[in-house]
């Protein structure tokens, strides 16, 4: 058994778990944070992406013990305490970047980290290349790319700008 202490969405949490417990299992089954999902068994689909110490990681391939003393942010921790959505959540909603919603938590966490940490301005080509670690079966990716570019543009431009509903072409 491992006694793991991790700060999750701003709250320090301690748990006794079997050594082999994955971070995603800790979140879903021990802490009832079921927002993070499991979609595959080969570390490819990205449904499980969370932030660990400021980096996007696949929580299905990290042991809870490896996150000891770390800081984890899940999709449940993105919006503000008063319910104000993160710009990426808002953009996904306005631009219809989700359908069934299963890949969405990992997709949003991946997208947020991309926009926050990529050192150059994002283009469609860069977004498509850098998001290849996340699969979606419903949307064909088209609107997700739009949402990410909208948030990136808003971040680069006027900080007050909300991602615009670009309408349908």
């Amino acid at each position: 058994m491992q006694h793991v202490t991790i700060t999750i969405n701003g709250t320090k949490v301690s748990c006794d778990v079997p050594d082999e417990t994955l971070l995603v299992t800790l979140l879903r089954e021990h802490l009832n944070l079921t927002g993070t999902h499991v979609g595959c068994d080969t570390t490819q689909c990205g449904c499980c992406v969370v932030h660990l110490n400021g980096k996007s990681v696949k929580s299905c391939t990290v042991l809870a013990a490896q996150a000891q003393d770390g800081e984890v942010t899940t999709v449940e921790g993105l919006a503000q305490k008063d319910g104000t959505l993160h710009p990426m959540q808002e953009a996904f909603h306005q631009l219809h970047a989700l359908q069934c919603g299963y890949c969405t938590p990992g997709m949003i966490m991946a997208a947020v980290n991309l926009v926050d940490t990529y050192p150059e301005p994002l283009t469609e080509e860069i977004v498509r290349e850098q998001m290849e670690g996340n699969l979606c079966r419903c949307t064909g990716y088209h609107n997700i790319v739009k949402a990410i570019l909208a948030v990136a543009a808003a971040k680069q431009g006027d900080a007050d700008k909300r991602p615009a509903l670009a309408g349908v072409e």
Partner: protein
Amino acid sequence: MVMYPTHYHRPKSLEEALKLHADNEEASYLSGGHTLIPALKQRLARPSDLIDLAVVPGLRGIKLEKNVLSIGATTTHAEVAASSVVRKAIPALAGMVGTIGDRHVRNRGTIGGSVANNDPAADYPAAVLGLGATVVTDRRRIAADDFFVALYETALEPGEIITCIEFPVPDQAGYAKFRSAASRYAVAAVFVAKFGGSARAAVTGAGSGGVFRLRDLEAALAKDFGPAAAAHCKVEPGNMLEDHVGSSEYRANLVVVMARRALEHLGEASSYK
């Protein structure tokens, strides 16, 4: 599947890690975990203990000294790809590492783990062999030419830990990779490097025995380090991997094409699929 039960350790030093391994016959080292943990989730292995090297001090970091680029074994792919030191010294290496897996995998995967594993389609072995790097372990220094023994097999002794990899800085280098549509691993990829009047060219993804050097191409490159030399590339289909992604003839063809493209885009890594 759920992994078999195991014991996880956080050694405070290299010595403690070595001792833990020596005391537990069925122990495995853990670094980035992005090769080992997926294998454990498939129940392909049953280590009694996991010894986390990523928490051992002194194994992480990037240094350029006297034309040798040293990368600590637990340095992540993301760190290498983003490093201004690597980008300046060996841009093709930084570029190549930036194509490993995906962003999230690169935040965890490490050079030590990749090199120790010697996956026949992984990128790092091509760079290590293509640059003639030295694998430094807790007990010795191993030249790249002696390190990669067979598929998934290296010269490492049981318990031996890679501490860092030293890359000689070349005059020029390039990398071109053709990726499988599904796994995104290399179907064939070539790393070329020029060192004064000599050259090296290493191939991953295609060889039935793992990473290997293209001697014919190296000889031609020594005379003329450029794309034209790729015309002299002789690749025997018989030595190539054959699977549903590519026949041996196809891989033999890809090796030549990727070699040429690596030479057409020196100072970069280019990825095709």
